């Protein structure tokens, strides 16, 4: 992550200096007019000349932290391949300064673990402010969310031969150093709990399934909020195997679990008062001699039976068990699951919004509002009576998915999951279209987005940390 230093004045060196400029305030830079720079959001202008590079960042009329974050991110990108840069936030509110730096840090992240060293990329940022003391607590809070997001990205970026189910669990266990309690259930305990969905999906792989339970106790005596994550370290589709083209993207099929882990880290780093628990279903869906088959009937953790129709609709099976486990073990006040669940949601909403399903209008509105705050946008989607009817099975309590052409599979999946939410207020985020950026944006380069980590952190901050409420 970008190393940040708070300073009162720029260093006396040649590192480029980013200067945020709000709309209408560009006149103080004589070269701005010639460059057509007005301070409109997204504009960038660089002062020509041999001296230190001065880069103006158009901030428009910023209303929210997100506007400042995006300006910071665009500035970082405009600076290019330099090891260090300055960001002049003097004259701005401490909150704005922290957000600018957060945006820069989000944009600066890249996955370098598998490259030979040598390429220059921004790694140090001097944030120049009037009062470091005033900015520091704001930055600490912003940094927690950034680090949560970047943890999620790191996990998603890891190839499946590195991030095996065991390695994923091991990495989650290291979060204990931040005060998170981590419990990993292996095959034996999964069998004892009867989590037949997770066991079946993980059955074909040499890497065994895991259920990772992360707890942050907070300081308020209240039932926790539960985050449920789909953690398919790799998804071949199993016996219902996927086409070869594009299959490499399936290493990101654990992005939901990664986002939940990232959110837990953020809560711990900023010592959130709200209790939270993450239940992450980790497995690898492989074709193997012990793979589960289309036609199999599984007995799930809740005791219900499910007829398997398509082994590539495995996410809902592992989530169903994780939802049931979370609902019965922790009696949470709300549950949110995140999953790269369906191709249908990509057809429906593309790469700009995740699908939002659920049973509790208040929780859905809160999740959508938190998403808007951090630029991780959601769109409400329906679970209709027909969607549930389509899952009637001839042999079991329900089918895992429907068959035919033009299937509303994202809705079907949500209708399936609802059966396992146990009456707890529940929201389901289908993030299959947004887990990876196809091209660079203000808050991230091409690659894993970490979508969800900041959203969950913001959701907790906005709605579940009001101590008075409890």
């Amino acid at each position, binding site marked *: 992550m970008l190393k940040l230093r708070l300073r009162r004045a720029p260093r006396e060196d040649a590192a480029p200096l980013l200067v945020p400029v709000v709309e209408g305030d560009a006149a103080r830079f004589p070269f701005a007019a010639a460059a057509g720079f007005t301070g409109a959001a997204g504009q960038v202008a660089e002062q020509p000349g041999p001296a230190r590079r001065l880069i103006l960042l158009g901030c428009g009329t910023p209303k929210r932290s997100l506007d400042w974050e995006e300006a910071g991110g665009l500035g970082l990108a405009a600076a290019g391949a330099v090891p260090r840069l300055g960001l002049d936030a003097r004259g701005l509110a401490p909150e704005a300064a922290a957000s600018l730096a957060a945006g820069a840090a989000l944009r600066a992240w890249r996955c370098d673990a598998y490259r030979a060293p040598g390429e220059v990329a921004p790694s140090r940022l001097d944030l120049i402010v009037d009062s470091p003391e005033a900015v520091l607590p704001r930055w600490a809070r912003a940094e927690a969310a950034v680090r949560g997001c970047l943890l999620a990205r790191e996990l998603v970026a890891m190839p499946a031969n590195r991030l095996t189910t065991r390695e994923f669990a091991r990495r989650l266990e290291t979060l204990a150093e931040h005060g998170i309690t981590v419990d990993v259930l292996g095959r034996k305990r999964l069998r004892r709990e009867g989590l037949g969905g997770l066991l079946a999906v993980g059955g074909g792989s040499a890497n065994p399934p895991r259920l990772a339970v992360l707890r942050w106790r907070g300081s308020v005596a209240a039932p926790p909020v539960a985050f449920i994550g789909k953690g398919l370290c790799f998804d071949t589709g199993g016996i219902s195997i996927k086409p070869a083209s594009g299959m490499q993207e399936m290493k990101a099929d654990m992005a939901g679990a990664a986002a939940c882990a990232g959110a837990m880290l953020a809560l711990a780093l900023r010592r959130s008062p709200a209790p939270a628990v993450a239940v992450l279903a980790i497995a690898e869906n492989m074709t193997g001699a012990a793979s589960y088959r289309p036609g199999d009937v599984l007995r799930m953790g809740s005791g219900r039976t499910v007829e398997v129709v398509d082994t590539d609709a495995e996410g809902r099976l592992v989530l169903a068990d994780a939802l049931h486990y979370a609902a019965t073990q922790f009696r949470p006040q709300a549950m949110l699951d995140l999953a790269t669940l369906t191709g249908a949601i990509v057809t429906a909403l593309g790469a700009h919004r995740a699908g939002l399903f659920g049973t509790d209008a208040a929780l859905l509105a809160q999740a959508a509002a938190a998403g808007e705050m951090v630029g991780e946008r959601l769109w409400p*989607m329906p679970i209709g009576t027909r*969607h549930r009817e389509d899952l009637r099975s001839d042999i079991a309590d329900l089918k895992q998915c429907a068959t035919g052409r033009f299937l509303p599979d994202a809705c079907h999946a949500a209708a399936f999951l609802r059966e396992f939410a146990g009456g707890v207020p529940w929201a389901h985020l289908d993030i299959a279209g947004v887990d990876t950026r196809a091209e660079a944006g203000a808050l991230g380069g091409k690659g894993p987005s970490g979508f969800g980590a900041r959203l969950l952190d913001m959701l907790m901050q906005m709605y579940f940390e009001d101590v008075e409420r409890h």
Partner: protein
Amino acid sequence: MLDIAFVKPALPRHGALVLPLAEGAETALTGLAQAIDAATGGAVLKALAAAGFKGRKGQSATIWAPALEGGAPGPAKLVALGLGKEMTAEAAEAAGGALLPLISGEREAVIAAEALPAPIAASLSLGLLLRSYRFDRYRTTEKEEDKPKLERVSVATDAASAVKAAWAPMRAVADGVFLARDLVSEPPNVLNPSEFADRLQALESHGLVVEVLGPKEMRKLGFGALLGVAQGSAEEPRMVVMQWNGATGGKAKKAAQKPVAFIGKGVTFDTGGISIKPAAGMEDMKFDMAGAGAVAGVMLALAGRRAKVDAVGLVGLVENMPSGSAQRPGDVVKTASGQTVEVINTDAEGRLVLADVIHYCQQRFAPRFMVDLATLTGAIIISLGHEHAGLFSNDDALAQQLTAAGKTVGEALWRMPLGEAYDKQLKSDIADMKNVGGRPGGSITAAHFIQRFVDTKDGPMPWAHLDIAGTAWTTKDLPTVPKGATGFGVRLLDRLVAEHYEG
């Protein structure tokens, strides 16, 4: 069509007698229900109790050949119909729909509706009528006993004039729904663009003003997009403009009351063109004109119930065929608005048709708002399924009105997003836009394509787009819609007008 009449209560001597009963009313019969119970020496009450009939919503009980005291002639069949606790119009419609299969074996039926409020009695009749729709023009060998027998339903009421008053507009709307269903059901070798236009021309007898434009006129108007789609077919395209001047009494327009405008996609058959569709299921593509069918239906409904509104309905009618003269992927066409389109996929033809018709509509009528209906994308089925049509709009108020209207009449809409990021997916290397934006968000980018032809440069133009690809046809019976063409959109738009745009 089923004949529905409102009559004074009298016990029928044959056919079916229907007892619609709210929850709790099954033990305290009144009117004809009481009369038949008395005539059978209390056998009806006993039979209902024995059948466990409680008047619950969706519940029914059938008593065959109830024996009347003294051997008097009576109904062949008694049907008790549960209405539930709260009698809403929606519940009454559903009950009416559910009733149809229970009595369709009789030639005649009497519904004992004395205890029902007039609007509820009318809604029950509407449900029954809508469910009774059947398209059997092309069955020549069906056996007599396989055909539904029901010809006449008499609704027995003491308030015939009140029920009739509530019924008249419903009946007009049902006519509109049936027109839409007929048009959608017609096979594509019969209903080609010119036949479609002829049938709309015939609506003049109902008081609509109808104009039909052919290729020559459309060429003059610069309809390059619509004509490009049509050019592969031997069938000539048409655009039909229907006007209902209900606010201005059908006379020359007085003040500048702007009309409401409905625009429909009417691809009478869609092979996909050169980007041809897979063979499996292609027969469904006869319903690719369901948007135009719904627009025709709502115009007939408005005229039928003499709605106090000025409304225009425009439909673009074409057939999309592959041929030596067909449009190719890569072609660039110029739309009537002057914007150019690179045709990437000839199977994304509906938006090309709508682009020209919407532009024309706005230029000519400067309407209060525009709502277009189209079986536009398979992606909307993958998004929402068959229970909701997709709603896209640049205007929250209009979107809410539409959603509420849809909810009331059981034609549900689900709002879908628009946004600049989606619009960008239409960027072309050679023209103003491509006609497709890729698989991700396929219905959204289609809506954005259409939105580019809604001109808001000189002020707001409220616009909504209903993607009805998933709701125009049903593969199973629904309460008020038998399997087949649904007529989706007619009741919704009629309700929108009735609620907000009349008077």
